[in-house]
């Protein structure tokens, strides 16, 4: 298949979300505004007001209701989307788990922002780290282009009849949400064909008859019932089973989309930049990868074997990819845009360090908590981290397991 001709338009990250949703034949959008996600709902409201989409836009009174309404719309058979950030995601927390447990393929954009207190509207990853264990697939974007591409892919992934698992697409607040980029967009009809019309897996009703999995008066199903100790465990186990087949589907969708658009993101799970022959590597999520890649280029020009591994799917965690990429390195640093207070490093550090425990060899690994509340992560700070890694690689000794980069001590 030849790559489709595309136009390039200026979009910030939030607008890229709204544009992708507009093209994806979404039936119901239920959302509530919160900085820095607001542009998504504003743009989408304009599409509705101008008749550019055939979507029911439910402008709810809270994020809790936003996800509840998206969830039941999805269970009724609609393609459903919502978006939030920070406190909004925290307010949704209960429904984040319920949506995954109900196996409703909702897609949600999370414009990552710090959690209160103190109140702060800028970027960090504290909001979504509280949802790691909820049962959602998590895609993380590096730039507005990837935001656009990932939203479109998310519908295909979530709604796959073998998966039926909600997907959240994370984009860094302000760094991505409010920064204008040139974004290549596919023609409307191409996206529409790519996402297709929602299909419903068949499930057994109480009489053992196979019926479509949706709220349909012709085939009455009871959804979200009381599940006691005799069945709950199996249902939670089924969610884990779905996560095990998710990589196959994520890969398939990513590769099919790459053929269409000419754009791919590493292997779909991790984006390894100069990692193969690297001796020192940083691991990060989101937009920080862009700056870090620039720093890696500078270091390489000086003959320093540096690399950066960006994780694109935090859930399912690409254990093998991360392990293979890191196990033979001389030193590894995790860049954590959130902290697990009292937990020895940030949550992302826990994830990566945990993966390395199963590796053949164990490079020294350290954590740098950075950028909380939108604090900038300039190249100089990243250069210092690589300097530390060179020292660790040379001596094999870790002086500080966890450090805070860019904070006044």
């Amino acid at each position, binding site marked *: 298949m030849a790559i489709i001709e595309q136009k390039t338009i200026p979009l910030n990250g939030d607008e890229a979300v709204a544009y992708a949703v507009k093209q994806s034949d979404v*039936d*119901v959008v*239920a959302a509530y505004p919160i900085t820095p996600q607001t542009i998504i709902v504003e743009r989408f409201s304009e599409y509705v007001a101008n008749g550019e989409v*055939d*979507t*029911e836009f*439910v*402008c*709810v*009174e*809270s994020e*809790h*209701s936003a996800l*509840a*309404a*998206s*969830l*039941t*719309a*999805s*269970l*009724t*058979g*609609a393609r*459903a989307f919502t978006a939030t950030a920070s406190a909004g995601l925290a307010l949704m927390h*209960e*429904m984040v788990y*319920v949506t995954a447990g*109900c196996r409703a393929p909702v897609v949600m954009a999370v414009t990552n922002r710090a959690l209160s207190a103190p109140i702060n509207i800028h970027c960090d990853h504290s909001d979504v780290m509280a949802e790691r264990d909820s049962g959602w697939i998590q895609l993380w974007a590096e730039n507005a282009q990837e935001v656009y591409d990932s939203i479109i892919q998310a519908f295909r992934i979530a709604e796959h009849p073998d998966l039926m698992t909600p997907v959240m697409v994370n984009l860094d607040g302000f760094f991505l949400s409010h920064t204008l980029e040139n974004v290549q967009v596919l023609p409307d009809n191409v996206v529409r064909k790519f996402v297709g*019309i929602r299909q419903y897996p068949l499930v057994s009703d*109480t009489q053992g008859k196979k019926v479509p999995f949706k*709220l*349909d*008066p*012709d*085939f*009455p*199903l*009871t*959804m*979200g*019932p*009381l*599940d*006691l100790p005799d*069945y709950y465990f199996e249902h939670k186990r089924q969610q884990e089973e779905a996560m095990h087949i998710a990589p196959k589907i994520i890969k398939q969708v990513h590769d099919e989309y790459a053929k269409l658009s000419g754009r791919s993101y590493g292997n779909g799970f991790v984006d390894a930049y100069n990692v193969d022959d690297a001796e020192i590597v940083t691991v990060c999520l989101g937009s920080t990868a862009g700056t870090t890649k620039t720093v890696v280029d500078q270091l390489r020009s000086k003959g320093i074997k540096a690399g950066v591994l960006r994780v694109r799917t935090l859930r399912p965690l690409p254990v093998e990819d991360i392990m293979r990429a890191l196990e033979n390195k001389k030193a590894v640093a995790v860049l954590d845009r959130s902290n697990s207070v009292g937990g020895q490093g940030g949550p992302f550090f826990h994830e990566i360090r945990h993966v390395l425990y199963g590796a053949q060899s164990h490079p020294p690994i350290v954590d740098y908590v950075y950028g909380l509340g939108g604090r900038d992560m300039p190249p100089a700070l990243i250069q210092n981290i690589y300097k530390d890694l060179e020292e660790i690689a040379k001596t094999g000794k870790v002086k500080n397991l966890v450090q805070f980069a860019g904070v006044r001590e």
Partner: protein
Amino acid sequence: MITIKELTEKPELFTAGHRACAGCGPAIALRQIMKALRGPTIVTEATGCMEVVSTIYPYTAWNVPWVHTAFETAAANASGIEAALKVLKRKKRITHEHVDVIALAGDGGTYDIGIQALSGAAERGHDFLYVLYDNEGYMNTGIQRSGGTPLGASTTTSPAGTVIPGKTQHKKPIADIMVAHDIPYVATASIGYWQDLMAKVRKGLEVEGPAFLHVMAPCPRGWRSDTAKTMEISRLAVETCVFPLWEAVNGEYGLSPISKAIALKPDRKKPVEVYLKMQRRFAHLFQPKFQHIIKEIQDDTDKRWNRLLKKCNIPQVAVSKT
């Protein structure tokens, strides 16, 4: 108005075999509601007694599509379902000409934790019927007080002690709050008067836009009442005007026949004492030191009743004797 004979021919959409207690008012309410449907219907329900007793996996008492998500979400759920039905019909992806949407919740899920979602859904004007089955407390979790628990009732979080006589606050006027949302239909109903209840369910489904039905449904466990007296107590709530039956169509209040008869012949209005006496949650009020609470309940009942008569443009004939 529907007859008993016609009722027996209607399918049981809320079936036998659920695990509700003997004499459960809400279970009776659901059976009556589900016999009043007019066509294809999707039901969503808040966490609560009726959700718990009717859907213990792998069993279900529901012969209609039914969904539960959380405690505070009945109205938000209905919003999502209604929005989905609208757009799927427009896109010709469903074949039904119309599907009714009913949200069910108890008093905890309505007066307290669910009122934000309910208010939002009413303001947005979704076409659905919200049914509050009011058993005046968090019965499922062990009889705790809610915003719907009446003055003087003893619950596990408003226990009648030696100093404090049960709940010290009044019941929130939830149905009036919903009338204030300027929605097309609000009504109160009692399982003691099933024909009235079913007629109101039907009206609530027929109006375009949000409808709210407040159903009084006694809980023998929580009210400490005789399981055989659920219907009698339900009727007494109406006959004492503790829970008058009325409806507000497009904001215009009108008394329903049972309560209208009392309004026109005030000597039919029974003192609240006869209602309170049948429920041991009020037993402590009959001690001399707490008897003033009974008077307070009577005064409050009279005040609300007179206010209602005014709204219904019925001249106040007399106040009840205490």
